[in-house]
C-alpha cells in the first residue's frame, strides 16, 4: 500500500527533514577501537564535520579567561599573560591555553542581554531568545540533523554532564523531534539500556532476535508500511549501537592519555569526548561546572580553570595532531559572563552585556581576536554580536548555509536567526 508521506499541498514539500527522517542512527565507520594512527583519522576528517562544545556552566568570568583587564578597577588580582600569538594576552589562569592561542579564535564583543541562567543558556545553545509557541532545537540537534552522514552506527548528539542521570532526552531537539535529541552520559556513563544486561545471555539474545526477524518477515508478507519497516529496522540499528558500546567507554583509552588529560572527572570526560568524536559522533557537548561565583569569584576560578585548562589544551593538541581540528569546530561557551564590578563578597554576578567565547577549528581564522570591550570591560566597543551571530558562524564554519529553512509542520523556520548573520571576519 502506498502511503501519502507527502502532504497534498506545497507546505510539506520535499524538505531535507523528510528525506532523512528514517535514517536514524544507521551507519558505518567500522572498527571498535579508537583511531590512534593520525593517518586513519585524516581519512575520516576529509568527509565528516563535527562539533565539540565545552559548556562552562554557571557563567565563566571573561575577565579571568579570555578578556582580562588587569590593573583596572574591575580587573581583579590576576595578571594577563602573553600567548603564542604576539600581541594577544589572556588570563594567567589559562597558561596551557595561552600556549595554544595560535589555534584559537576569541570573540570578545558578545552582548546577549539576558542575565538569567536558563534563558541565557537557551540563547547560546539555540541562537534564539525563548519564544512562546515554538521550541527551537539546540545546536547539537541541528548539527546532528544537518551533518549526519548516512553511514553511521552511533547517535549524532551526545552530551557529557558532571552528574545527574544518563538517558535519552526529548526536548533539546525542539521541533526537529526526538530523533535528534541528545543522549546524556552522566559522569561519562552510558544509559543503562544501551548495554545488554547480564540476565540476557548472548545465546538468548541471538535466538530471540532471529525469531523476531522471522515473525516480522511473516507479517510483512501481507501487511507492510513505512512505519512497520521503520519499527522493524530500529531493532537492527539498536543492535549496531549496542555492538559499538565500546565507543562510550573512555576506560579503553591509553592510560597515558588519561594521565595527560588529568585524573579527574573533567579530564576523563574530555578524553571520552575525544573518543566519541573520533568514533564518528557528530556533536559532543561536555559540561564543566560550577562557575556561578557570586562569592569568592577568584578562588573558584583558580580551582575550576586549573581543572579546565589542561584537558582542554590536550584535546586541542590531539585534534590538531590527528588532523581532525580542520573538520572539528570547538566552542567554549557559557550562559553569560560575569560582572566587571566585584561585589562585597569578592564575587562577580551575572553579566551578559560584554563577554567572550573561544572557538577553534573548522577553518576559523586561528590566532585571531574579533570584537573589543572598553578599558574596564563594562561595554562592548567594537563588533558587538549576540547568540544569533554565533549560531550563524558555527554553521558557516561547518560548511552549511544557516539561512536555509527547516519546515516543522510545513512552516518555514530559518536554521539561524534571520535578524543576525555570521561573523564573516573570522571565517576563511
Amino acid at each position, binding site marked *: 500500500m502506498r502511503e501519502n508521506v507527502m502532504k497534498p499541498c506545497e507546505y510539506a514539500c520535499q524538505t531535507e527533514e523528510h528525506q532523512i527522517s528514517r535514517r536514524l542512527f544507521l551507519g558505518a565507520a567500522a572498527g571498535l577501537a579508537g583511531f590512534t594512527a593520525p593517518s586513519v583519522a585524516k581519512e575520516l576528517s576529509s568527509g565528516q564535520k563535527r562539533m565539540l562544545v565545552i559548556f562552562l556552566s554557571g557563567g565563566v568570568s571573561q575577565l579571568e579567561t579570555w578578556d582580562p583587564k588587569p590593573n583596572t578597577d574591575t580587573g581583579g588580582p590576576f595578571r594577563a599573560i602573553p600567548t603564542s600569538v604576539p600581541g594577544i594576552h589572556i588570563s594567567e589562569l589559562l597558561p596551557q591555553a595561552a600556549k595554544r592561542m595560535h589555534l584559537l579564535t576569541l570573540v570578545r564583543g558578545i552582548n546577549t542581554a539576558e542575565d538569567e541562567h536558563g534563558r541565557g543558556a537557551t540563547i547560546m545553545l539555540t541562537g534564539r531568545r525563548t519564544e512562546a*509557541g515554538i521550541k527551537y532545537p539546540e545546536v547539537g540537534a541541528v548539527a546532528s540533523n544537518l551533518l549526519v552522514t548516512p553511514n553511521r552506527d552511533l547517535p549524532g548528539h551526545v552530551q557529557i554532564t558532571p552528574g545527574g542521570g544518563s538517558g535519552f532526552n526529548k526536548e533539546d531537539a525542539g521541533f526537529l523531534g526526538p530523533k535528534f535529541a541528545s543522549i546524556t552520559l552522566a559522569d561519562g556513563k552510558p544509559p543503562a539500556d544501551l548495554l545488554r544486561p547480564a540476565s540476557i545471555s548472548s545465546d538468548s539474545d541471538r535466538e530471540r532476535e532471529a525469531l*523476531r526477524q522471522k*515473525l516480522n518477515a511473516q507479517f510483512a508478507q501481507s501487511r507492510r508500511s513505512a512505519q*512497520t519497516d521503520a519499527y522493524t529496522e530500529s531493532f537492527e540499528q539498536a543492535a549496531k*549501537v549496542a555492538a559499538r558500546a565500546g565507543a562510550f567507554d573512555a576506560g579503553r583509552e591509553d592510560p597515558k592519555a588519561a594521565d595527560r588529560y588529568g585524573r579527574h572527572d573533567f579530564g576523563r570526560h574530555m578524553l571520552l569526548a575525544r573518543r566519541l568524536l573520533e568514533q564518528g559522533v557528530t556533536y559532543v557537548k561536555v559540561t564543566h561546572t560550577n562557575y556561578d561565583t557570586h562569592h569568592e569569584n577568584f578562588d573558584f576560578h583558580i580551582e575550576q580553570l586549573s581543572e579546565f585548562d589542561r584537558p582542554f589544551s590536550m584535546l586541542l593538541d590531539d585534534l590538531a595532531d590527528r588532523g581532525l581540528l580542520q573538520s572539528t569546530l570547538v566552542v567554549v561557551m557559557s550562559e553569560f559572563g560575569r560582572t566587571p564590578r566585584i561585589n562585597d563578597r569578592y564575587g562577580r554576578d551575572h553579566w551578559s552585556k560584554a563577554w567572550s567565547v573561544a572557538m577553534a577549528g573548522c577553518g576559523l581564522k586561528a590566532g585571531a581576536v574579533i570584537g573589543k570591550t572598553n578599558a574596564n570591560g563594562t561595554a562592548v566597543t567594537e563588533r558587538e554580536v549576540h547568540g544569533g551571530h554565533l549560531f550563524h558562524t558555527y554553521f558557516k564554519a561547518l560548511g552549511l548555509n544557516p539561512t536555509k529553512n527547516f519546515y516543522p509542520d510545513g512552516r518555514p523556520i530559518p536554521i539561524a536567526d534571520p535578524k543576525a548573520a555570521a561573523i564573516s571576519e573570522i571565517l576563511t
Partner: protein
Amino acid sequence: MGSPWRLLLTMALASTFFSSKLQAEEPLHKGIDRIIAEGFESPTKAASPAKDAEFLRRVTLDLTGRIPSATETRAFLANRTPTKRAEWIDKLIASPEYSRRMQEYFDVVLMDRRADTKVSRAAWEEFLRTAFASNKPYDELVREILSNDGANPKTRAAAKFFLDRDLEPTIVTRDISRLFLGRNVQCAQCHDHPLVDDYAQEHFYGIQAFLNRSYLFPNAQDVKAVIAEKAEGEVSFISVFDPKKVQKSTPPLVSGWKPIVDVTLEKGKEYKVAPAKDVKPIPAYSRLEKLGAAITAQENVAFRRTAVNRLWALMMGRGLVHPIDFDHSKNPPSHPELLTLLADEFVKHRCDVKWFLREIALSESYQRSSEIPPGGQDVSQDRFAVTILKPLSPEQFGYAMIQATGLTDVYRKELGNNASETSLHAKLSAHLGPFQRIYGSRPGEPEDAFSSTLDQTLFVKHGDHVQNLLSPRVGSLIERAGKLKEPTDMAEELYLTIYSRFPNEVERRDIAELLRMAKNRTALLSDIAWAMLASAEFRFNH
C-alpha cells in the same frame, strides 16, 4: 443580526435539514460504506472483510485501549451468533474501559502531555472520564472546557486547558484553532499564512480577541490562579510583510462565521467588581464568556467537521482531512461528501460520541482486513480500501504488554471480589509510566508523527521494565504456558495471549519444534514471548 448573516444561517440550517431528510432511511454506517465504495478505483483492490480475530483485536484496542485476553479471544472465536460483532462493540462501549480510553486519548489531544501545574491530573482525568462515561455531548464538553474560569473548586478541573497553558494567548489561540476548528493558524500569527490562502492573520487575532482581556489572577505563578477579565482592551496586529506597517484590529471572530458585536457599556458601569489592588475584577460584559458558544455553535461548520474528522482518524488511522489540523480549501478532504455527512449526522445526533464511534465500528469500511490484496500495493491510503496499520499509542502499547505478559490477570486474581476497572487500573497504571515517558510526545508538543527512536527500541530490547513484565510469576503467561504438556498447546497459548489469534499450522509447528529441542523450556518460552512482543504484529493495531 445583520441580514447577510441571517441569510447564511438560514441556508446552513436548511441544507442540514434537507440532506438529513434525504438520507433518513440509511443508517450512518451504510452511508459510510456507500461513499467509501464510490471512491475505489477498483473494488477488487479493496481488502476482504477482516477475520473475527483481526476484528476483535482491532476494535478492542480502538474502543478500550487494551487487547483482548486469551479467554475472551477463545470465547469470541467460538461464538456462532451472527450478531456477535455488534454485540461486542456494544459491550466495549458500555464498559468502564471505554471511558478510560477516551479519557486517555482526549487528555493527550487537549493537553499534549504538558506538566500538571494548576489542575491536578486526578481531577482532570476524573472530569474527562465521567464526561465520556455519561456520554456527554461533545459540544457541551468543549463548551465546559472553554468557558470555565477556574473559580469554582467543584468545576475547576475543566479549566485545565486554559490554566495549565498559563492562559498564554499565543498558545491558547493556536490550540483552540488547531484542536476545535482544524486550522493550524500558527503561521498566521505574524502575517497571513504564506501558503494557505484561507488562513488570514485576522483569524488568529479574531480568536485571540476572545482572550485578550483575560489574565491569571493573582498571577501566573500561583497554583491556585483563576482567570480574571478586564472590561477593555483590543487586539492589534501588523503584518511583518506590510511595508506601511498598518496597525489592524479585529473584534472576537471565528473565521467563517459572524464576528461578535461587543456590548458597549456606559462609563462607570463597566464592572460588577471594579479592579483594585489584590481584587479580582468582574466586568459587566465578558468576551471570554462568548468563546465556548462561538466555537461550538451549530452554524460553525469547522467545529463539527473537525470533531468528526478526529474521531474518524482515531478509528481509521487517518483523517478524511489529513493532517487533521490543516483543513483548508487547498487541502480538501479525501471524501468531501462523507465528511459533510458525518458532520451533519453528528450534530443531528446531538454530538453523541458513543453513537458515532459505534456507527464507524459497524461499517464494512472499518471491518475490512489490513492484509493487502494482490495488486493493492499501489492504492493510496486515503481510499480506505485496506485497513491502515495504526501504531499503538504509548498507553495502548503499555496496557497490551501488561496484558500479554499476564500481569493484568495476576492482578485481577489478586483483587478477587474487589476487582473493578478502577481498582485494577490503579495497579496497572503503576507499570504504565515508563511507556508514556518513552513513547509519548515531548511535553507541551502535539504527538509527533510515528518514529522509532533508539531509546524506545533499547527499552524493549534491554530495559529491565520489559524484562520484569516477562519474568515468570504465578499466573503469568510464561508460567501458564510452561505448565502445559504439549508444545503445540504452548504455541497456541502464546499466540492467543500475545497476538489474540490462533497460530496457523506452520506457526504452530515451528514454535512447537523449537520448544521440543529446548534445553530450558521456560527460558525459551520467555525468548519466544519477547520476540512476539517486539514484533510489528504486536506494535501495530492492524
